[in-house]
């Protein structure tokens, strides 16, 4: 109970810190929203022109895009500070976190908030809502439950990858470039039905880097598009659970790597 309270306190502090700069908040959110919707617009134009992509209709693609973007927004709101982790280590801020009575990882993640995550979240929700009527889904409680679990699970998958890669910084200090590349791969390939990719790439984007688990696999289940899936339907249904599992593995890896921490000089 105290732990949750402490996390909320720190998260609240980073939110309030950000709101000291009001103009920045507004431009970041609006900017983030426009950026994401522009990205979607390209997909919209292409799919609208060819009426379908990899056998998925325009509303289905919109739905997939919305799921991925919402997950990404949740990931960004909670875990994006991993992108600044190298700096936290190098400038000695991490020492500060280690002398407080709580998890240093939580302190890293709550040290600041990138408000443009709200743009991503908003964009994702708009697309999801817009698409939810167009897709052929019976919105039962089970379907809604699967959607919620999938969106959270997707955020966990992206978070797991960033935390695991960030843990390498305990040893090698500069790993930002790897994480930026990984994040880019999620952003570029995560929003499309995998059938349009060559076979090898489909497997790489599933097992080498778990992009498929963020949105494509759970969306296939929700939209009943599991025919011709490159993996078993069971694996697709289990996507949210896999998200949780990957995240726990990432935390273990973090803990293990943190033993290599050498602290900065002064």
């Amino acid at each position, binding site marked *: 109970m*105290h732990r949750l*309270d*402490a996390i909320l*306190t*720190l998260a609240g*502090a980073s939110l*309030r*810190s*950000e709101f*000291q*700069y009001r103009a920045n908040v507004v431009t970041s959110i609006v900017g983030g929203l426009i950026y994401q919707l522009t990205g979607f617009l390209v997909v919209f134009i292409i799919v609208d022109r060819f009426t379908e992509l990899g056998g998925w209709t325009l509303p289905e693609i919109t739905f997939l895009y919305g799921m991925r973007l919402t997950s990404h927004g949740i990931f960004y709101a909670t875990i994006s500070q991993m992108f600044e982790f190298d700096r936290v280590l190098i400038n*000695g*801020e991490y*020492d*500060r976190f*280690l*002398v*407080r*009575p*709580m998890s240093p990882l939580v302190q890293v993640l709550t040290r600041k908030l990138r408000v443009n995550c709200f743009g991503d979240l908003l964009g994702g929700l708009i697309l999801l809502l817009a698409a939810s009527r167009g897709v052929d889904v019976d919105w039962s409680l089970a379907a809604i439950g699967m959607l919620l679990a999938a969106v959270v699970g997707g955020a966990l998958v992206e978070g797991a990858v960033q935390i695991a890669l960030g843990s390498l910084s305990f040893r090698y200090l500069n790993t930002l470039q790897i994480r930026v590349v990984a994040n880019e791969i999620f952003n570029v390939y995560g929003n499309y039905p995998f059938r349009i990719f060559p076979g090898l790439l489909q497997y790489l984007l599933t097992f080498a880097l778990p992009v498929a688990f963020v949105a494509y696999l759970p969306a296939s289940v929700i939209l009943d598009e599991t025919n011709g899936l490159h993996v078993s339907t069971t694996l697709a249904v289990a996507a949210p659970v896999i998200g949780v599992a990957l995240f726990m593995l990432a935390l273990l890896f973090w803990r293990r790597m943190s*033993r290599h*921490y*050498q*602290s900065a*000089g*002064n």
Partner: protein
Amino acid sequence: MPIIDVDNLVKEFHRPKRFDGPLGGLRTLVTRQMITSRAVDGVSFSIDEGELVGYLGSNGAGKSTTIKMLSGILVPTSGHVAVNGLVPWQERERNALQIGVVFGQRTQLWWDLPLADSLKIIGKLYRVEPDRYRRNLDQFIDLLGLEPFLGTPVRQLSLGQRMRGDLAAAMLYEPRILYLDEPTVGLDVVAKERTRQFIEQINRETGTTILLTTHDLADVERLCNRIIFIDKGNVLYDGPVDRLKRRYAPYRMLDVALAGDGDSAGAIRLDLPGVEIVEQGDARLRIQFDPEVIAVTDLITAVIAEHDVSDIAIVEPDLEGVVRQIVESGNTALTMGGDRS
């Protein structure tokens, strides 16, 4: 039972070996050869509850590395530490609740929030009950004069104000042990004095055990009755400040101003045991003497008996000179650590 017990503490750092020449960068990247450096090399000491100890040494002597192991930031290569019965790196969070840490060069306050908000957050993280929080906060507002800038974002505070905020944050949850890593670095004279006063008061009134590292030896002379001096990762001296001075700077100086025209200055000779004239100017003398051999009163009597003296002053060796001497002579033959009685 000491509150801090450090036994044969060693910390080694490993870095990949660097290569020069063609493809040097690439070889550095892939090499498995490691260079090992020992920052702390077998340090032992113990500190009793309520002590205020100065932990001294030149840059790179291993001071900060020791403090980092005592506070749970670093895991030592070998050796043992118990802080109030806890091993800091094994029970990091429990240890964190009983220590306060101030790094002079880095603030722990929230940069963009008013000071009052930072203190409130610290109060929550350290589980201070509202009553106790209120009482402590009022006390520190009073002691440190925080009132005028409680509502100012930390990024707009002066260094001195920020240090006061950091001290309040570190003491808000009443830790039994306080580590201060260069708390006066970069402060002006007034701010330094204020900081020292607070440290002294905290130690005296609440009995908080304080371990202080500093490069400003005036801090030590003002605050500490015991110092631990380390160099190259070893304890060179552990004991009272005045004994260090006696041991490394056994001589005092007597500055004598001569009355009259100073003609006699050239003829001055003092044939006394343990006495030497080290400087002679017009109408001025600097005499070095060993108080163990000759009492200062005898020396003054002897000087006055032979010369017309207008002024006389005894100069105590300052700690800075002593420390410089130790570091310059810099060999471990001086080692006498752990002989504190």
